[in-house]
């Protein structure tokens, strides 16, 4: 029996897509377009997933788990074809235990939906990627997603208490942070679908803060704003969020949302101070003082909940509002130590200039997590080449400053050839050993994370931007 016939038999015809027009949607994620999968399956429960994985194992077909496809590094793209598992139908909050501040969710639950479900109990879910209205908790777990509040609450890995997952042979397993033995939960989070297919996630919920202040400071340029962030963190102050947007981004955002960000400033710093009301005022005063010492031109606190939400909604919608000014853009993700932010921003600016590309910056400054957006037109071959080369130069600059090549989006397909700039062959070989335990046949999301040709122990040299160039030219980074 063919693979497809077996899938039909196991899941029923309404849960298996094979028509090219249906499949083409799954050839993309927010980074790139690649090739069509053999089939897309829409399991209803963990047992369905297990059946699919077993069939794939027996037929030697790759498996690509897919959440909402908002990933920015090609993680959910079926580069080797195979079977894409969509979690669109596994989108239930299975349990919400308010007393114990815990929830068990299926992977297809949209990030924001969990916080909405928890709100009546005075609870929320910590990690809030800017894509939280559309991205799924399965995808968030797969990438160890962060977001603006990672500064205070951490990334996914700090919130996942256990995962139910399907192993490569199709058996169902459970890993719990509190269980005896090695921390399988810790390695499954952020493994980008290469170690197992996650079918349920146990997460912790946090108590809603008793008081929240959101303030906006304007600066002359993005270097000054980031110097303020370095100074705030350097003074031992950790507010709940510290986000920066530069002028280019603010003007796009304001045209779209009218939230009241100053459009004449070179950059704005969004500061959120959430916690107990007892500390809110003094917290704001101290941070505002540092901001002024670092050259803030203005400081304004949002008047109420509506204004706070508007400021946040436009910050989180920044990438989406770029459509007005950018034919295409490419979003980079890198992290530097927080004291190096001003230098990193300066290097980004120099690199963009050298490549004659406009650049916008909208990023999680408090964590040192940069997101330069390179603006280009994909119909211009020269610009596509320039983006690929500038993107790589930015990563190299961040590494030189003591940073790394991804703070939250992942390595996926996009950055796998860059990974050897950060890790030695020995480092990568240790990671490959782990892969061998979970996926000896390399059927789980092949051609991701590890540099091409990397079989346990041998790692090819970096510096291949060829595939990246093709991807960009083919319409990647579209949004």
């Amino acid at each position, binding site marked *: 029996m063919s693979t497809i016939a077996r899938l039909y038999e196991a899941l029923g015809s309404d849960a298996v897509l094979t028509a090219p027009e249906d499949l083409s949607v799954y050839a993309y994620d927010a980074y790139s377009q690649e090739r069509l999968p053999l089939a897309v399956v829409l399991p209803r429960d963990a047992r369905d997933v297990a059946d699919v994985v077993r069939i794939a194992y027996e037929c030697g077909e790759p498996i690509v788990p897919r959440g909402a496809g908002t990933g920015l590094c090609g993680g959910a793209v079926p580069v080797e074809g195979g079977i894409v598992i969509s979690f669109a139908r596994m989108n239930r909050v299975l349990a919400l*235990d308010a007393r*114990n501040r815990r929830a068990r969710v299926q992977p297809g639950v949209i990030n924001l939906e969990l916080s909405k479900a928890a709100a009546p109990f005075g609870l929320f879910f910590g990690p809030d990627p800017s894509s939280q209205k559309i991205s799924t908790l399965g995808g968030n777990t797969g*990438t*160890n997603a*962060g977001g603006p509040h990672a500064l205070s609450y*951490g990334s996914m*890995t*700090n919130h996942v208490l256990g995962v139910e997952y399907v192993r490569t042979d199709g058996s169902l*397993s459970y890993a719990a942070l*509190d*269980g*005896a*033995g*090695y*921390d*399988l*939960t*810790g*390695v499954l*989070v*952020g493994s980008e679908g290469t170690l197992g297919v996650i079918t349920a996630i146990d997460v912790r919920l946090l*108590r809603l803060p*008793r008081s929240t202040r959101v303030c906006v400071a304007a600066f002359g340029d993005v270097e000054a704003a980031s110097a303020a962030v*370095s100074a705030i*963190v350097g003074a*031992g*102050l950790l507010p709940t969020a510290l986000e920066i947007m530069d002028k280019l981004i603010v003007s796009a955002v304001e045209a779209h949302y009218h939230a009241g960000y100053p459009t004449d400033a070179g950059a704005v710093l969004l500061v959120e101070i959430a916690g*107990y009301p*007892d*500390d809110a005022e003094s917290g704001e005063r101290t941070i505002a003082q540092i901001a002024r010492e670092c050259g803030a031109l203005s400081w304004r606190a949002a008047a109420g909940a509506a204004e706070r939400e508007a400021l946040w909604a436009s910050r989180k919608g920044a990438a989406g509002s770029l459509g007005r000014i950018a034919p295409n853009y490419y979003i980079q993700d890198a*992290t530097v*130590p*927080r*004291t190096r932010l001003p230098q990193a921003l300066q290097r980004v600016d120099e690199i963009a200039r050298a490549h004659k590309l406009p650049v916008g910056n909208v990023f*999680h400054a408090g*964590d*040192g*997590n940069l997101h330069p957006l390179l603006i280009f037109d994909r119909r211009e071959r020269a610009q596509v080449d320039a983006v690929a080369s500038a993107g790589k130069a930015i990563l190299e600059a961040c590494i030189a400053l*003591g*940073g*790394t090549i*991804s*703070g*939250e*989006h992942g*390595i996926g397909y996009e950055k796998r050839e860059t*990974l050897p700039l*950060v*890790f030695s062959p*020995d*480092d*990568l*070989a*240790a*990671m490959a050993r*782990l892969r*061998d*335990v*979970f996926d000896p046949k390399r059927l789980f999301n092949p051609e991701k*994370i590890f540099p091409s040709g990397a079989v346990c122990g041998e790692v090819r040299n970096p510096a291949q931007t060829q595939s990246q160039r093709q991807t960009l030219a083919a319409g990647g980074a579209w949004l």
Partner: protein
Amino acid sequence: MALAPGLDPAAFALGGKVPLRALAPASIEELAAVVKACNEAGEAVVVFGGGTLQGIGFSPARYNIAISTARLDKVLEYEFRDLTISVECGRSVERLNATLAERGQFVPLDAPSPGLSSVGGLLASGWSGPRRATFGRPRDFVIGSTVVLADGTVAKAGGMVVKNVTGYDMSKLWCGSLGTLAVLARANFKTLPLPETTRVALAALPERTRRRAVEHVAALDVEPSVAIALHGFPEAGGRDGQEGRLFLMFEGSHTLVDRATRDLRSAIGAAGVPETTLLDGTAATSAFARLLDAYGARLGERSLTYRSCGLPGEALSRCDALAHAATRHELHAESLLDILGGDAYVRVSTKLTAEFAAAVERLDASLGTSSPTYTIFNAPEMLRDGLKMWGNEMTSPATQRDIKHRFDPKATFAPGRFAGRANCSEGKRA
């Protein structure tokens, strides 16, 4: 190996086994050379930090060489303005936090005996203390690591930035691996600013008010960073006898801690708790240090500690179930219950060492598959291999074994720590 001076092997005995040699390499390169040589020679190795948490898991099935990390104690990088630090793993937790305190920072590792406990040993043991519900576990503060694998390979993961998804998060695998996969040589942490003030509130906790007080504490508006219901454990401020103690700690600004104190008094007053004693400043921090020490404290050869993890709302029942089972077998039970984190530590003991083994073996046998999940630590060396050190279930045992085999194919590192005599019938030791 000549580079690594020898120490007295007798000081590193475990489970009645005295290693042939005990070595203390002074650099990561030297450590790698020593490990490689042991692995090639087929010598089984146990890595020693301060030895404070060696009592977790089974004792090693084979044991030839002890490697002490005591000389690997340097601070490698400390960019205090980045709130990150990198240290060699033999540094004691106390010295790590002393370095950080100079800059008004800390990492909430909550080690028992922090003066002895090494950073690497603490991480490898998978330890998490009473502040994990508030701040997170030690593993949540690790942003990068360097390890020496069994074949002597030096491998790093993560880095010196606070947010990082570059490659697999291997540090998670090393944390909690009990020295069975690799030697932690270097650990990078993100740090936190020290709170403006710390206050401990101690209150009597009569048996009849216990359940209500626990619920009130769990619902306090200002959350304590530590909330423990003690029963026994006099060394931590608890009382022997029927009456328990409530140990709460608040950390934050003066304004906040003052309000927390007022709220607390009315909340637990309403629950029928009579009076509260407050400790501030160093009195508070030393009370907390005593509490942490109690987690790891044993009563000679006549006690062991059960640790049961799970939902906070069920912690009291789990704790009581273990304590009652112990009492049924003529063991004295003391407990330390983490109200917010949900951990229950039950220390069982007898007055006379001679009576202990028989009583504890009966208790162990009675804790069948229906009992709550627990692990045992700090058992007397001679008993530990016969008890269910890992409780009733280990998740994904096949995967666990496979991981061990991939990273340490010759079973050089602490063979048998995760699967001792009790699990031998399963086949290969992990």
